[in-house]
């Protein structure tokens, strides 16, 4: 399968602390890849590096064949930040139309994106009056409106009810089926099974890169939460053994 994002030996230092320790990963085109790991594990930093707004110490990040952050990619990469980025004193529809205008698109695309995230009924509502989950979806609509080739979504399903989460994941998979590449971060393991591929990250290190079934097989359990735990313990044992051998 063709690669959309290639990360090679990525090291990132923020402040005086190294937060990514030589991560390498391949993300195939037209897929939904889950980036899973606990809070503070480096998910957002890795996403920032892929979007091209993170200063990297060493290593390379290539997106659609170009170095991350290059001008040519700006039209092809969409980014949903963890905190919603929409104007609270505009309605959902006005926000979507604002972003659509920025991308040279019209009201039709904007309204479609609003419906796609399940906010059709709240389109005329001020964002400031929405719940946290709705606000997050309004922000997602703005990220989806330009239909980018690569979508980097930082915890887009946090605070959503199960029905909406299900709908959002269905939407993500539909986008992937149409050829878009999605990298979706989450710290909720039960979402892992909805991804075509998983990157499990902990303390700035990639501890697994495989399909959900591949990870289940490697860990020897069906439950992905348990599989993640086993992989962590195996990694810890390996590190302890290596330290003891010195």
């Amino acid at each position, binding site marked *: 399968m063709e690669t959309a994002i290639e990360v090679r030996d990525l090291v990132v230092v923020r402040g005086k602390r190294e937060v990514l320790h030589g991560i390498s990963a391949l993300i195939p085109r037209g897929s939904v890849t889950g980036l899973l790991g606990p809070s503070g594990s480096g998910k*957002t930093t890795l996403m*920032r590096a892929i*979007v*091209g*707004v993170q*200063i990297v110490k060493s290593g390379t990040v290539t997106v659609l064949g170009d170095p991350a952050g290059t*001008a040519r990619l*700006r*039209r092809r*990469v*969409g*980014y*949903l*930040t*963890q*905190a*919603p*980025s*929409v*104007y*609270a*004193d*505009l*309605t959902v529809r*006005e926000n979507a*139309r*604002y*972003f659509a*205008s*920025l*991308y*040279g698109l019209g009201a039709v695309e904007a309204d479609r994106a609003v419906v796609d995230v399940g906010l059709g009924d709240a389109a005329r509502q001020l964002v400031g009056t929405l719940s946290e989950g709705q606000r997050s979806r309004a*922000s997602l609509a*703005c*990220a989806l409106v*330009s239909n*980018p080739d690569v979508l980097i979504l930082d915890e887009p399903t946090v605070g959503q009810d199960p029905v909406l989460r299900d709908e959002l994941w269905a939407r993500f998979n539909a986008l992937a089926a149409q050829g878009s590449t999605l990298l979706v971060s989450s710290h909720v393991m039960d979402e892992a099974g909805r991804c075509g591929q998983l990157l499990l990250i902990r303390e700035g290190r990639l501890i697994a890169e495989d399909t959900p079934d591949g990870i289940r097989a490697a860990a020897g359990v069906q439950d992905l939460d348990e599989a993640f735990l086993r992989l962590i313990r195996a990694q810890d044992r390996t590190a302890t053994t290596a330290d003891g051998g010195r």
Partner: protein
Amino acid sequence: MIASLRAELLRLRRWPVTWVLCGTWLVLNLAFGYLFNYLSYRSRDGSGFAENITDAATARVLLRHLMPDQAPITLVAGLPMFGGALLLILGAITVGSGYGWGTWKTIFTTRPRRHTALGGTMAALGIVLAGLIAVTFVLDLIASFTVAAAESQPTTWPSLADSAQGFGAALLISAMWMAAGVLLGTLTRGPALAVGLGLVWSLVVENLLRGVAGLLGPVANVTDVLPGTAAGSLAGAVGALTQSDPNGTPGVTAVIGGTAATILLGAYLVLFLAGSLTLTARRDVTT
């Protein structure tokens, strides 16, 4: 750039803040430019409204400034201080709120380019500003013709040259203050601090410094070239009564000449806009 301009015009058009600030300016302009002066003129015969208008000459001056041919001057008179402050708020909130709500972050990481995005915002603000000044001028003309008709005074239109001069001066003064707001919004990456700092500067600090300049000569060299001084001096050069005049407008001065004030305001405008663009382009995008 066109896409950014369209997007920002859409935002400013739908944004309650724009209408509130522009509406406030229009009401204040009419109130202080016409309503209060006219009430003072009408109540000069001992109703208690205008105790300082004791002679016919003062009353004539007051009425003279309410006539249609003086509308270009009235348009400019309120801008150096309270009009400028309102437009500074609009500039600061327009840019600062993008940082506050995180929308700049998304735009800067995807598209358009930072210069283009902020350039679109500046252009949209410029269009709003030009429209606001035009509407203000029209309202001032309507108010002045109404007063002239009510007082059976000749209704002489302002000359084209005076109108152009007044419109240009109003645009330059208001654009400078708005650009100052844009710079503050960019510097502070938020609306609240930008508005607070801008208002303290425009309404308090400059006046305090002018007070100090009266005591310490060298300070005057600085105060003579401050943005507020330049704005007030241009308004004074166009014909607005200075704040030392009993009927004058706060903020209007005659410290420097019209040409020097125009050059200074132009320089501040360019400096504030270029500073905002440079800062935006060079700073890290935080998430």
